[in-house]
Protein backbone atom coordinates (compact mmCIF):
# COMPACT_ATOMS: atom_id res chain seq x y z
CA UNK A 1 0.00 0.00 0.00
CA UNK A 2 2.82 2.36 0.96
CA UNK A 3 4.63 1.60 -2.30
CA UNK A 4 1.43 2.18 -4.22
CA UNK A 5 0.97 5.58 -2.54
CA UNK A 6 4.54 6.44 -3.50
CA UNK A 7 3.98 5.50 -7.08
CA UNK A 8 0.74 7.46 -7.20
CA UNK A 9 2.49 10.44 -5.67
CA UNK A 10 5.41 10.26 -8.09
CA UNK A 11 3.13 9.76 -11.07
CA UNK A 12 0.91 12.66 -10.12
CA UNK A 13 3.97 14.86 -9.66
CA UNK A 14 5.03 14.01 -13.17
CA UNK A 15 1.59 14.60 -14.65
CA UNK A 16 1.29 17.95 -12.98
CA UNK A 17 4.51 18.85 -14.70
CA UNK A 18 8.01 18.09 -13.50
CA UNK A 19 9.65 21.42 -12.80
CA UNK A 20 11.19 22.79 -15.95
CA UNK A 21 13.06 25.37 -13.94
CA UNK A 22 15.89 24.45 -11.67
CA UNK A 23 15.92 26.19 -8.31
CA UNK A 24 18.20 28.87 -9.71
CA UNK A 25 15.79 29.76 -12.48
CA UNK A 26 17.78 27.98 -15.13
CA UNK A 27 15.65 26.00 -17.58
CA UNK A 28 16.67 22.40 -18.01
CA UNK A 29 17.05 20.67 -21.35
CA UNK A 30 17.54 16.95 -21.62
CA UNK A 31 16.72 14.07 -23.92
CA UNK A 32 13.36 13.36 -22.32
CA UNK A 33 12.25 16.98 -22.48
CA UNK A 34 13.45 17.23 -26.06
CA UNK A 35 11.27 14.29 -27.03
CA UNK A 36 8.33 15.61 -25.04
CA UNK A 37 8.59 19.17 -26.40
CA UNK A 38 7.10 22.24 -24.77
CA UNK A 39 10.36 23.62 -23.44
CA UNK A 40 8.87 26.94 -22.46
CA UNK A 41 5.57 25.36 -21.51
CA UNK A 42 4.24 25.76 -25.04
CA UNK A 43 4.13 22.66 -27.20
CA UNK A 44 3.17 24.75 -30.19
CA UNK A 45 6.32 26.82 -29.93
CA UNK A 46 8.47 23.77 -29.20
CA UNK A 47 6.86 20.72 -30.76
CA UNK A 48 7.92 17.27 -29.55
CA UNK A 49 11.23 16.01 -30.87
CA UNK A 50 14.33 17.68 -32.20
CA UNK A 51 15.37 20.36 -32.49
CA UNK A 52 14.63 21.72 -29.05
CA UNK A 53 13.24 25.13 -29.86
CA UNK A 54 14.09 28.03 -27.56
CA UNK A 55 11.59 30.83 -27.92
CA UNK A 56 12.29 32.91 -24.84
CA UNK A 57 15.44 34.68 -23.62
CA UNK A 58 16.99 33.16 -20.52
CA UNK A 59 19.47 30.70 -19.13
CA UNK A 60 19.27 27.06 -20.14
CA UNK A 61 21.27 24.05 -18.99
CA UNK A 62 21.65 20.56 -20.35
CA UNK A 63 21.03 17.84 -17.81
CA UNK A 64 21.81 14.95 -20.14
CA UNK A 65 23.45 14.31 -23.47
CA UNK A 66 21.23 15.07 -26.45
CA UNK A 67 21.40 12.28 -29.00
CA UNK A 68 19.96 13.44 -32.30
CA UNK A 69 19.42 10.25 -34.22
CA UNK A 70 18.10 11.71 -37.46
CA UNK A 71 20.68 13.38 -39.67
CA UNK A 72 18.25 15.96 -41.00
CA UNK A 73 17.45 17.31 -37.54
CA UNK A 74 19.36 19.80 -35.45
CA UNK A 75 19.94 19.77 -31.70
CA UNK A 76 18.83 23.14 -30.35
CA UNK A 77 17.30 25.96 -32.35
CA UNK A 78 17.02 29.52 -31.09
CA UNK A 79 14.03 31.12 -32.69
CA UNK A 80 14.12 34.22 -34.80
CA UNK A 81 14.56 37.36 -32.72
CA UNK A 82 15.17 35.60 -29.39
CA UNK A 83 18.34 37.30 -28.19
CA UNK A 84 20.11 36.95 -24.85
CA UNK A 85 20.14 33.20 -24.46
CA UNK A 86 22.74 31.29 -22.44
CA UNK A 87 23.13 27.55 -22.92
CA UNK A 88 25.34 25.78 -20.40
CA UNK A 89 26.01 22.33 -21.77
CA UNK A 90 26.87 21.15 -18.26
CA UNK A 91 29.69 18.95 -19.47
CA UNK A 92 27.26 17.06 -21.71
CA UNK A 93 27.32 16.47 -25.44
CA UNK A 94 24.97 17.19 -28.32
CA UNK A 95 25.66 14.29 -30.64
CA UNK A 96 24.46 13.56 -34.15
CA UNK A 97 24.84 10.46 -36.26
CA UNK A 98 27.17 11.79 -38.93
CA UNK A 99 30.94 12.02 -38.70
CA UNK A 100 34.03 12.93 -40.64
CA UNK A 101 36.62 10.47 -41.80
CA UNK A 102 39.92 12.35 -41.89
CA UNK A 103 42.34 10.84 -44.33
CA UNK A 104 44.26 13.71 -45.96
CA UNK A 105 43.87 14.95 -48.61
CA UNK A 106 40.31 13.68 -48.23
CA UNK A 107 37.84 14.56 -45.55
CA UNK A 108 34.73 12.47 -46.05
CA UNK A 109 31.46 13.10 -44.36
CA UNK A 110 29.81 9.94 -43.13
CA UNK A 111 26.32 9.09 -42.01
CA UNK A 112 24.51 11.14 -44.61
CA UNK A 113 25.50 14.58 -43.38
CA UNK A 114 26.53 17.49 -45.56
CA UNK A 115 25.60 20.93 -46.79
CA UNK A 116 22.05 21.90 -45.94
CA UNK A 117 21.73 19.83 -42.84
CA UNK A 118 20.98 21.69 -39.62
CA UNK A 119 23.39 22.55 -36.84
CA UNK A 120 23.92 21.26 -33.35
CA UNK A 121 22.99 24.69 -32.01
CA UNK A 122 21.46 27.15 -34.45
CA UNK A 123 20.24 30.71 -34.16
CA UNK A 124 17.79 30.84 -37.02
CA UNK A 125 19.17 33.18 -39.69
CA UNK A 126 17.02 36.20 -40.44
CA UNK A 127 17.12 39.96 -40.30
CA UNK A 128 16.19 39.69 -36.64
CA UNK A 129 18.57 36.87 -35.85
CA UNK A 130 19.20 36.25 -32.18
CA UNK A 131 22.13 38.22 -30.74
CA UNK A 132 24.23 37.67 -27.63
CA UNK A 133 23.92 33.91 -27.38
CA UNK A 134 26.37 32.19 -25.04
CA UNK A 135 27.26 28.50 -25.28
CA UNK A 136 29.65 26.98 -22.81
CA UNK A 137 31.06 23.86 -21.25
CA UNK A 138 30.40 20.86 -23.46
CA UNK A 139 30.63 19.29 -26.89
CA UNK A 140 28.81 19.29 -30.20
CA UNK A 141 29.81 16.32 -32.32
CA UNK A 142 28.92 14.50 -35.49
CA UNK A 143 26.10 16.75 -36.59
CA UNK A 144 24.95 16.54 -40.19
CA UNK A 145 25.58 20.28 -40.65
CA UNK A 146 27.48 22.87 -38.63
CA UNK A 147 28.38 22.31 -35.01
CA UNK A 148 27.41 25.79 -33.81
CA UNK A 149 25.81 28.45 -36.01
CA UNK A 150 25.09 31.69 -34.15
CA UNK A 151 24.36 35.34 -34.76
CA UNK A 152 26.23 38.51 -33.77
CA UNK A 153 27.91 39.08 -30.42
CA UNK A 154 27.87 35.43 -29.49
CA UNK A 155 30.17 33.85 -26.95
CA UNK A 156 31.50 30.29 -27.03
CA UNK A 157 33.59 29.09 -24.13
CA UNK A 158 35.09 25.72 -23.25
CA UNK A 159 33.29 23.98 -26.07
CA UNK A 160 34.49 21.25 -28.40
CA UNK A 161 33.06 20.97 -31.88
CA UNK A 162 34.21 17.81 -33.58
CA UNK A 163 33.46 15.79 -36.69
CA UNK A 164 30.57 17.93 -37.83
CA UNK A 165 29.76 17.76 -41.54
CA UNK A 166 29.71 21.55 -41.88
CA UNK A 167 31.71 24.22 -40.07
CA UNK A 168 32.76 23.53 -36.52
CA UNK A 169 31.62 27.01 -35.51
CA UNK A 170 30.02 29.59 -37.76
CA UNK A 171 29.68 32.84 -35.85
CA UNK A 172 28.55 36.28 -36.85
CA UNK A 173 30.26 39.63 -36.13
CA UNK A 174 31.55 40.66 -32.71
CA UNK A 175 31.66 37.12 -31.41
CA UNK A 176 34.06 35.66 -28.91
CA UNK A 177 35.57 32.19 -28.74
CA UNK A 178 37.47 31.27 -25.61
CA UNK A 179 39.40 28.10 -24.76
CA UNK A 180 37.54 25.95 -27.25
CA UNK A 181 38.44 23.27 -29.77
CA UNK A 182 37.37 22.71 -33.36
CA UNK A 183 38.59 19.36 -34.62
CA UNK A 184 38.07 17.29 -37.74
CA UNK A 185 35.11 19.24 -39.09
CA UNK A 186 34.18 18.93 -42.76
CA UNK A 187 34.68 22.63 -43.58
CA UNK A 188 36.40 25.33 -41.52
CA UNK A 189 37.07 24.80 -37.85
CA UNK A 190 36.00 28.29 -36.76
CA UNK A 191 34.59 30.92 -39.11
CA UNK A 192 33.79 34.27 -37.54
CA UNK A 193 32.62 37.61 -38.93
CA UNK A 194 34.03 41.08 -38.29
CA UNK A 195 35.53 42.15 -34.97
CA UNK A 196 35.78 38.68 -33.49
CA UNK A 197 38.04 37.62 -30.67
CA UNK A 198 39.37 34.07 -30.67
CA UNK A 199 41.58 33.24 -27.72
CA UNK A 200 43.31 30.17 -26.32
CA UNK A 201 41.70 27.79 -28.74
CA UNK A 202 42.72 24.89 -30.97
CA UNK A 203 41.67 24.19 -34.56
CA UNK A 204 43.07 20.93 -35.85
CA UNK A 205 42.47 18.54 -38.70
CA UNK A 206 39.58 20.45 -40.20
CA UNK A 207 39.18 20.05 -43.93
CA UNK A 208 39.26 23.77 -44.75
CA UNK A 209 40.86 26.62 -42.88
CA UNK A 210 41.48 26.11 -39.21
CA UNK A 211 40.36 29.59 -38.12
CA UNK A 212 39.01 32.26 -40.44
CA UNK A 213 38.01 35.65 -39.05
CA UNK A 214 37.08 38.73 -41.03
CA UNK A 215 38.04 42.38 -40.47
CA UNK A 216 39.33 43.59 -37.14
CA UNK A 217 39.87 40.21 -35.55
CA UNK A 218 42.05 39.45 -32.56
CA UNK A 219 43.39 35.91 -32.45
CA UNK A 220 45.83 34.94 -29.72
CA UNK A 221 47.20 31.99 -27.82
CA UNK A 222 45.77 29.53 -30.31
CA UNK A 223 47.00 26.53 -32.27
CA UNK A 224 46.04 25.61 -35.84
CA UNK A 225 47.48 22.30 -36.84
CA UNK A 226 46.96 19.78 -39.58
CA UNK A 227 44.10 21.59 -41.29
CA UNK A 228 43.54 20.89 -44.96
CA UNK A 229 43.86 24.55 -45.96
CA UNK A 230 45.49 27.57 -44.27
CA UNK A 231 45.83 27.42 -40.50
CA UNK A 232 44.68 30.92 -39.53
CA UNK A 233 43.24 33.50 -41.93
CA UNK A 234 42.22 37.07 -41.14
CA UNK A 235 41.24 40.06 -43.18
CA UNK A 236 41.85 43.78 -42.89
CA UNK A 237 42.99 45.36 -39.67
CA UNK A 238 43.41 42.21 -37.63
CA UNK A 239 45.90 41.26 -34.94
CA UNK A 240 47.43 37.85 -34.40
CA UNK A 241 49.74 37.20 -31.48
CA UNK A 242 51.24 34.16 -29.82
CA UNK A 243 49.78 31.54 -32.10
CA UNK A 244 51.19 28.34 -33.57
CA UNK A 245 50.31 27.20 -37.09
CA UNK A 246 51.86 23.94 -38.17
CA UNK A 247 51.46 21.27 -40.80
CA UNK A 248 48.53 22.93 -42.54
CA UNK A 249 47.69 22.64 -46.23
CA UNK A 250 47.32 18.93 -46.90
CA UNK A 251 44.19 19.48 -48.99
CA UNK A 252 45.17 22.77 -50.65
CA UNK A 253 47.71 23.71 -53.27
CA UNK A 254 49.25 26.41 -51.10
CA UNK A 255 47.85 26.39 -47.60
CA UNK A 256 49.71 28.85 -45.40
CA UNK A 257 50.36 28.82 -41.70
CA UNK A 258 48.96 32.36 -41.52
CA UNK A 259 47.28 34.38 -44.25
CA UNK A 260 46.60 38.09 -43.83
CA UNK A 261 44.27 39.47 -46.47
CA UNK A 262 43.19 43.05 -47.07
CA UNK A 263 46.13 44.77 -45.44
CA UNK A 264 46.78 46.63 -42.19
CA UNK A 265 47.01 43.51 -40.09
CA UNK A 266 49.76 42.49 -37.72
CA UNK A 267 51.24 39.13 -36.85
CA UNK A 268 53.85 38.69 -34.16
CA UNK A 269 55.22 36.32 -31.60
CA UNK A 270 54.07 33.30 -33.50
CA UNK A 271 55.32 30.09 -35.09
CA UNK A 272 54.54 29.00 -38.63
CA UNK A 273 56.24 25.74 -39.45
CA UNK A 274 55.85 22.86 -41.88
CA UNK A 275 52.98 24.42 -43.85
CA UNK A 276 52.88 24.85 -47.62
CA UNK A 277 53.51 28.57 -47.14
CA UNK A 278 54.86 30.20 -44.00
CA UNK A 279 53.06 33.53 -43.91
CA UNK A 280 51.06 35.12 -46.69
CA UNK A 281 50.60 38.84 -46.23
CA UNK A 282 50.18 42.08 -48.11
CA UNK A 283 52.30 45.19 -48.34
CA UNK A 284 50.62 47.06 -45.52
CA UNK A 285 50.72 44.18 -43.09
CA UNK A 286 53.30 43.83 -40.36
CA UNK A 287 54.98 40.63 -39.39
CA UNK A 288 57.35 40.72 -36.46
CA UNK A 289 59.39 38.38 -34.39
CA UNK A 290 58.06 35.08 -35.47
CA UNK A 291 59.69 31.77 -36.30
CA UNK A 292 58.92 30.56 -39.80
CA UNK A 293 60.55 27.26 -40.53
CA UNK A 294 60.41 24.26 -42.84
CA UNK A 295 57.53 25.44 -44.98
CA UNK A 296 57.47 23.78 -48.38
CA UNK A 297 57.59 25.37 -51.79
CA UNK A 298 54.39 27.21 -52.59
CA UNK A 299 52.60 27.50 -55.86
CA UNK A 300 54.47 29.29 -58.59
CA UNK A 301 54.39 33.05 -58.40
CA UNK A 302 54.16 33.48 -54.66
CA UNK A 303 56.88 33.68 -52.12
CA UNK A 304 57.22 31.05 -49.45
CA UNK A 305 57.32 33.57 -46.66
CA UNK A 306 55.13 36.50 -47.63
CA UNK A 307 53.90 38.62 -50.47
CA UNK A 308 54.38 42.09 -48.98
CA UNK A 309 57.78 43.60 -48.43
CA UNK A 310 57.46 46.54 -46.10
CA UNK A 311 57.20 43.79 -43.57
CA UNK A 312 60.92 44.08 -43.20
CA UNK A 313 60.59 47.25 -41.17
CA UNK A 314 59.18 45.18 -38.35
CA UNK A 315 61.94 42.65 -38.36
CA UNK A 316 65.16 42.65 -36.46
CA UNK A 317 67.17 40.74 -39.00
CA UNK A 318 66.97 41.60 -42.71
CA UNK A 319 65.04 39.11 -44.68
CA UNK A 320 66.92 36.95 -47.15
CA UNK A 321 63.75 36.63 -49.18
CA UNK A 322 62.30 40.12 -49.67
CA UNK A 323 64.04 42.07 -52.40
Amino acid at each position, binding site marked *: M*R*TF*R*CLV*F*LASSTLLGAPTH*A*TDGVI*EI*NQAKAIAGGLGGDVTADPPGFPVRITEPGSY*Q*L*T*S*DLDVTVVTLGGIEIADGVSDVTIDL*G*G*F*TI*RGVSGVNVSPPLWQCTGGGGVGNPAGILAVPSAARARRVTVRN*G*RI*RKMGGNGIDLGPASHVE*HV*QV*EQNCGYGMLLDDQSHVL*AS*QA*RANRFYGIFCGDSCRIV*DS*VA*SENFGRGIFALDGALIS*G*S*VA*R*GNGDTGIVVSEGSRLA*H*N*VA*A*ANGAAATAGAGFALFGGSSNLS*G*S*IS*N*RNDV*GVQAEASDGVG*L*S*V*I*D*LNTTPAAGSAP*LWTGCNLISFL*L*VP*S*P*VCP
Partner: protein
Amino acid sequence: VSKLALIAFCALAVGSAAFARDGRIEINQASATAGGVNGDLAADPPGFPVRITQPGSYRLTGDLLPPSIALGGILIAAGTDDVTIDLGGFAIRGSSGVVVEPPSWSCATAFGAGIGIRAEPGGAATSKNVVVRNGRVLGFANTGVDLSGDGSRVEDVHAESNCGIGIALGDDAQIESSAANRNLALGMLCGVACRIVGGVVAENGGGGLRPLGDSIVSGSTVRDNGGDDIRGFESTLVVDVTVSDDALANLRLERGSLVLGGSITGLSAVLEAPSAAWGLTVLRGSGSTDVVGALSIACVVFETSGPCP
Protein backbone atom coordinates in the same frame (compact mmCIF):
# COMPACT_ATOMS: atom_id res chain seq x y z
CA VAL B 1 3.28 12.74 6.66
CA SER B 2 4.74 15.89 5.25
CA LYS B 3 5.23 16.19 1.50
CA LEU B 4 9.00 16.43 1.96
CA ALA B 5 9.12 13.28 4.06
CA LEU B 6 7.01 11.45 1.52
CA ILE B 7 9.35 12.45 -1.28
CA ALA B 8 12.36 11.29 0.74
CA PHE B 9 10.72 8.00 1.62
CA CYS B 10 9.69 7.36 -1.95
CA ALA B 11 13.17 8.06 -3.20
CA LEU B 12 14.56 5.46 -0.80
CA ALA B 13 11.88 2.93 -1.59
CA VAL B 14 12.29 3.21 -5.34
CA GLY B 15 16.07 3.16 -5.20
CA SER B 16 18.80 5.68 -4.46
CA ALA B 17 19.30 7.97 -7.40
CA ALA B 18 22.70 8.02 -9.06
CA PHE B 19 21.71 11.20 -10.89
CA ALA B 20 22.10 14.58 -9.27
CA ARG B 21 19.48 17.27 -9.77
CA ASP B 22 21.51 18.64 -12.68
CA GLY B 23 21.58 15.31 -14.45
CA ARG B 24 25.16 14.56 -13.64
CA ILE B 25 25.98 11.13 -12.30
CA GLU B 26 27.35 11.21 -8.80
CA ILE B 27 30.43 9.30 -7.75
CA ASN B 28 31.53 8.92 -4.17
CA GLN B 29 33.17 6.33 -1.95
CA ALA B 30 29.90 4.56 -1.27
CA SER B 31 28.88 4.33 -4.92
CA ALA B 32 32.40 3.21 -5.85
CA THR B 33 32.23 0.45 -3.28
CA ALA B 34 28.79 -0.59 -4.46
CA GLY B 35 29.68 -0.52 -8.18
CA GLY B 36 27.33 0.00 -11.10
CA VAL B 37 28.06 3.66 -11.72
CA ASN B 38 26.14 3.40 -15.00
CA GLY B 39 23.57 1.05 -13.55
CA ASP B 40 25.35 -2.09 -14.67
CA LEU B 41 27.29 -4.13 -12.13
CA ALA B 42 28.82 -6.25 -14.85
CA ALA B 43 30.32 -3.17 -16.49
CA ASP B 44 31.36 -1.62 -13.19
CA PRO B 45 31.88 -4.29 -10.56
CA PRO B 46 31.91 -3.25 -6.92
CA GLY B 47 35.09 -1.59 -5.73
CA PHE B 48 37.83 0.36 -7.43
CA PRO B 49 38.43 1.59 -10.00
CA VAL B 50 35.05 3.12 -10.74
CA ARG B 51 34.50 2.07 -14.36
CA ILE B 52 32.72 4.58 -16.58
CA THR B 53 31.20 2.97 -19.66
CA GLN B 54 28.78 5.66 -20.84
CA PRO B 55 29.32 9.19 -22.16
CA GLY B 56 28.01 11.90 -19.90
CA SER B 57 28.76 14.26 -17.09
CA TYR B 58 29.94 12.92 -13.74
CA ARG B 59 30.57 14.64 -10.45
CA LEU B 60 32.33 13.60 -7.30
CA THR B 61 30.34 14.15 -4.14
CA GLY B 62 33.09 13.00 -1.79
CA ASP B 63 36.74 12.03 -1.74
CA LEU B 64 37.63 8.69 -3.33
CA LEU B 65 40.06 6.48 -1.44
CA PRO B 66 40.98 3.25 -3.23
CA PRO B 67 41.86 0.74 -0.53
CA SER B 68 44.89 -0.75 -2.25
CA ILE B 69 48.00 0.61 -3.85
CA ALA B 70 47.31 -1.61 -6.87
CA LEU B 71 43.94 0.01 -7.59
CA GLY B 72 43.17 3.11 -9.58
CA GLY B 73 40.46 5.66 -8.92
CA ILE B 74 38.38 6.06 -12.09
CA LEU B 75 38.74 4.15 -15.35
CA ILE B 76 37.02 5.32 -18.53
CA ALA B 77 36.44 2.24 -20.65
CA ALA B 78 37.85 2.19 -24.17
CA GLY B 79 35.35 3.42 -26.70
CA THR B 80 33.61 5.72 -24.25
CA ASP B 81 34.09 9.25 -25.60
CA ASP B 82 32.68 12.53 -24.32
CA VAL B 83 33.03 12.12 -20.59
CA THR B 84 33.21 15.08 -18.19
CA ILE B 85 34.34 14.49 -14.63
CA ASP B 86 33.89 17.36 -12.22
CA LEU B 87 35.85 16.50 -9.12
CA GLY B 88 33.71 18.99 -7.20
CA GLY B 89 36.68 20.19 -5.19
CA PHE B 90 37.26 16.70 -3.83
CA ALA B 91 40.33 14.48 -4.07
CA ILE B 92 41.03 11.06 -5.47
CA ARG B 93 43.66 9.86 -3.10
CA GLY B 94 45.91 6.86 -3.49
CA SER B 95 48.02 5.39 -0.75
CA SER B 96 51.40 5.89 -2.39
CA GLY B 97 53.63 8.88 -2.16
CA VAL B 98 56.84 10.30 -3.46
CA VAL B 99 59.89 10.94 -1.34
CA VAL B 100 61.52 14.07 -2.72
CA GLU B 101 65.16 14.41 -1.82
CA PRO B 102 66.80 16.07 -4.82
CA PRO B 103 68.62 14.86 -6.80
CA SER B 104 66.71 11.67 -6.12
CA TRP B 105 63.00 10.98 -6.14
CA SER B 106 61.70 7.65 -4.91
CA CYS B 107 58.51 5.67 -4.37
CA ALA B 108 57.90 2.44 -2.53
CA THR B 109 56.15 1.25 -5.71
CA ALA B 110 57.05 3.17 -8.84
CA PHE B 111 54.95 2.91 -12.00
CA GLY B 112 52.60 0.46 -10.32
CA ALA B 113 49.10 -0.48 -11.38
CA GLY B 114 47.16 2.27 -9.68
CA ILE B 115 46.31 5.31 -11.84
CA GLY B 116 44.14 8.11 -10.52
CA ILE B 117 41.98 8.78 -13.58
CA ARG B 118 42.66 6.76 -16.68
CA ALA B 119 41.32 6.47 -20.18
CA GLU B 120 41.69 2.77 -20.78
CA PRO B 121 44.21 2.23 -23.59
CA GLY B 122 42.48 0.93 -26.67
CA GLY B 123 44.35 2.32 -29.63
CA ALA B 124 41.96 4.33 -31.77
CA ALA B 125 39.18 3.48 -29.31
CA THR B 126 40.90 5.19 -26.40
CA SER B 127 38.40 7.66 -25.00
CA LYS B 128 38.46 11.08 -26.64
CA ASN B 129 37.21 14.44 -25.50
CA VAL B 130 37.47 13.76 -21.79
CA VAL B 131 37.32 16.72 -19.43
CA VAL B 132 38.53 16.56 -15.82
CA ARG B 133 38.18 19.61 -13.63
CA ASN B 134 38.19 21.09 -10.21
CA GLY B 135 39.93 18.83 -7.72
CA ARG B 136 42.98 16.81 -6.76
CA VAL B 137 44.54 13.51 -7.75
CA LEU B 138 47.13 12.49 -5.23
CA GLY B 139 49.44 9.66 -4.23
CA PHE B 140 48.85 7.01 -6.87
CA ALA B 141 51.31 4.24 -7.65
CA ASN B 142 51.47 5.41 -11.25
CA THR B 143 50.22 8.47 -13.17
CA GLY B 144 47.72 10.85 -11.63
CA VAL B 145 45.63 11.72 -14.70
CA ASP B 146 46.26 9.63 -17.82
CA LEU B 147 44.07 10.56 -20.79
CA SER B 148 45.89 9.57 -23.94
CA GLY B 149 42.95 9.95 -26.34
CA ASP B 150 42.70 13.12 -28.42
CA GLY B 151 41.02 16.32 -27.40
CA SER B 152 41.05 16.04 -23.64
CA ARG B 153 41.13 18.92 -21.19
CA VAL B 154 42.24 19.23 -17.59
CA GLU B 155 41.23 22.34 -15.72
CA ASP B 156 41.84 23.46 -12.13
CA VAL B 157 43.36 20.14 -11.12
CA HIS B 158 46.22 19.43 -8.74
CA ALA B 159 48.19 16.25 -9.42
CA GLU B 160 50.70 15.64 -6.69
CA SER B 161 52.86 12.89 -5.22
CA ASN B 162 51.99 10.32 -7.85
CA CYS B 163 54.56 7.62 -8.62
CA GLY B 164 54.38 8.23 -12.35
CA ILE B 165 53.50 11.34 -14.37
CA GLY B 166 51.33 14.00 -12.82
CA ILE B 167 49.12 14.71 -15.85
CA ALA B 168 49.52 12.92 -19.21
CA LEU B 169 47.29 13.84 -22.15
CA GLY B 170 47.17 13.03 -25.87
CA ASP B 171 47.00 15.28 -28.94
CA ASP B 172 44.93 18.47 -29.15
CA ALA B 173 44.80 18.70 -25.38
CA GLN B 174 44.47 21.64 -23.03
CA ILE B 175 45.74 21.95 -19.49
CA GLU B 176 44.48 25.08 -17.78
CA SER B 177 45.16 26.53 -14.35
CA SER B 178 46.46 23.24 -13.05
CA ALA B 179 49.39 22.11 -10.94
CA ALA B 180 51.65 19.07 -11.07
CA ASN B 181 54.08 18.95 -8.21
CA ARG B 182 56.32 16.33 -6.60
CA ASN B 183 55.43 13.48 -8.94
CA LEU B 184 57.99 10.76 -9.58
CA ALA B 185 58.21 11.17 -13.35
CA LEU B 186 57.17 14.19 -15.43
CA GLY B 187 54.88 16.88 -14.18
CA MET B 188 52.84 17.32 -17.37
CA LEU B 189 53.06 15.51 -20.69
CA CYS B 190 50.87 16.16 -23.71
CA GLY B 191 50.83 15.33 -27.41
CA VAL B 192 50.96 17.65 -30.40
CA ALA B 193 48.83 20.78 -30.67
CA CYS B 194 48.67 21.06 -26.92
CA ARG B 195 48.10 24.15 -24.81
CA ILE B 196 49.37 24.44 -21.27
CA VAL B 197 48.21 27.67 -19.70
CA GLY B 198 48.52 28.88 -16.14
CA GLY B 199 50.39 25.87 -14.84
CA VAL B 200 52.48 25.42 -11.72
CA VAL B 201 54.97 22.60 -12.15
CA ALA B 202 57.59 22.00 -9.51
CA GLU B 203 59.78 19.32 -7.99
CA ASN B 204 58.85 16.47 -10.31
CA GLY B 205 61.52 13.80 -10.59
CA GLY B 206 61.54 13.21 -14.32
CA GLY B 207 61.15 16.77 -15.54
CA GLY B 208 58.55 19.48 -15.65
CA LEU B 209 56.63 20.06 -18.88
CA ARG B 210 56.88 18.00 -22.04
CA PRO B 211 54.65 19.10 -24.92
CA LEU B 212 55.32 17.00 -27.99
CA GLY B 213 55.39 19.81 -30.52
CA ASP B 214 53.25 22.44 -32.28
CA SER B 215 52.23 23.51 -28.82
CA ILE B 216 51.94 26.54 -26.56
CA VAL B 217 53.07 26.91 -22.98
CA SER B 218 52.10 30.23 -21.42
CA GLY B 219 51.69 31.99 -18.12
CA SER B 220 53.23 29.19 -16.12
CA THR B 221 55.89 28.74 -13.48
CA VAL B 222 58.24 25.79 -13.60
CA ARG B 223 60.77 25.11 -10.90
CA ASP B 224 63.31 22.59 -9.60
CA ASN B 225 62.30 19.54 -11.56
CA GLY B 226 64.63 16.58 -11.81
CA GLY B 227 65.05 16.52 -15.58
CA ASP B 228 64.50 19.32 -18.07
CA ASP B 229 62.07 21.79 -16.62
CA ILE B 230 60.59 22.37 -20.05
CA ARG B 231 61.37 19.98 -22.88
CA GLY B 232 59.49 21.10 -25.95
CA PHE B 233 59.56 19.23 -29.22
CA GLU B 234 59.52 20.97 -32.59
CA SER B 235 57.59 24.24 -32.87
CA THR B 236 56.97 24.98 -29.22
CA LEU B 237 55.90 28.50 -28.28
CA VAL B 238 56.76 29.53 -24.72
CA VAL B 239 55.22 32.82 -23.56
CA ASP B 240 55.64 34.52 -20.20
CA VAL B 241 56.94 31.49 -18.35
CA THR B 242 59.33 31.55 -15.43
CA VAL B 243 61.77 28.68 -15.19
CA SER B 244 64.13 28.32 -12.28
CA ASP B 245 66.33 25.45 -11.37
CA ASP B 246 69.70 25.18 -9.72
CA ALA B 247 70.53 21.86 -11.31
CA LEU B 248 70.50 20.37 -14.80
CA ALA B 249 69.19 22.05 -17.93
CA ASN B 250 66.01 23.97 -17.45
CA LEU B 251 64.74 24.87 -20.93
CA ARG B 252 65.28 22.68 -23.96
CA LEU B 253 63.36 23.28 -27.16
CA GLU B 254 63.68 21.67 -30.57
CA ARG B 255 63.92 23.61 -33.82
CA GLY B 256 61.34 26.08 -34.87
CA SER B 257 60.55 27.17 -31.34
CA LEU B 258 60.03 30.63 -29.90
CA VAL B 259 60.36 32.04 -26.40
CA LEU B 260 58.72 35.38 -25.57
CA GLY B 261 59.09 37.13 -22.26
CA GLY B 262 59.52 35.34 -18.97
CA SER B 263 62.69 34.45 -17.19
CA ILE B 264 65.13 31.61 -16.81
CA THR B 265 67.19 31.23 -13.70
CA GLY B 266 69.62 28.35 -13.63
CA LEU B 267 72.37 26.58 -15.43
CA SER B 268 71.38 26.33 -19.04
CA ALA B 269 68.86 26.88 -21.77
CA VAL B 270 69.08 25.12 -25.09
CA LEU B 271 67.15 26.15 -28.18
CA GLU B 272 67.85 24.21 -31.31
CA ALA B 273 68.32 26.42 -34.36
CA PRO B 274 66.42 27.90 -35.99
CA SER B 275 64.60 29.18 -32.94
CA ALA B 276 64.27 32.58 -31.35
CA ALA B 277 63.79 34.34 -28.07
CA TRP B 278 62.75 37.88 -27.23
CA GLY B 279 62.34 39.76 -23.99
CA LEU B 280 63.57 36.80 -22.01
CA THR B 281 65.56 37.42 -18.86
CA VAL B 282 68.32 34.87 -18.44
CA LEU B 283 70.10 34.76 -15.11
CA ARG B 284 73.22 32.68 -14.78
CA GLY B 285 73.25 30.13 -12.04
CA SER B 286 76.16 28.73 -10.17
CA GLY B 287 78.26 27.87 -13.17
CA SER B 288 78.40 26.29 -16.60
CA THR B 289 77.00 27.77 -19.77
CA ASP B 290 73.78 29.68 -19.56
CA VAL B 291 73.01 29.86 -23.26
CA VAL B 292 73.58 27.21 -25.87
CA GLY B 293 72.55 27.05 -29.48
CA ALA B 294 70.31 29.68 -30.94
CA LEU B 295 69.14 31.43 -27.83
CA SER B 296 70.14 35.03 -28.24
CA ILE B 297 67.99 37.99 -27.48
CA ALA B 298 66.49 39.75 -30.49
CA CYS B 299 67.29 36.97 -32.88
CA VAL B 300 64.83 36.18 -35.62
CA VAL B 301 65.48 33.20 -37.83
CA PHE B 302 63.76 32.55 -41.12
CA GLU B 303 63.25 29.32 -42.88
CA THR B 304 66.30 27.82 -44.54
CA SER B 305 68.64 30.02 -42.54
CA GLY B 306 71.23 28.62 -40.21
CA PRO B 307 71.94 29.36 -36.57
CA CYS B 308 71.48 32.86 -35.28
CA PRO B 309 74.33 35.25 -35.85
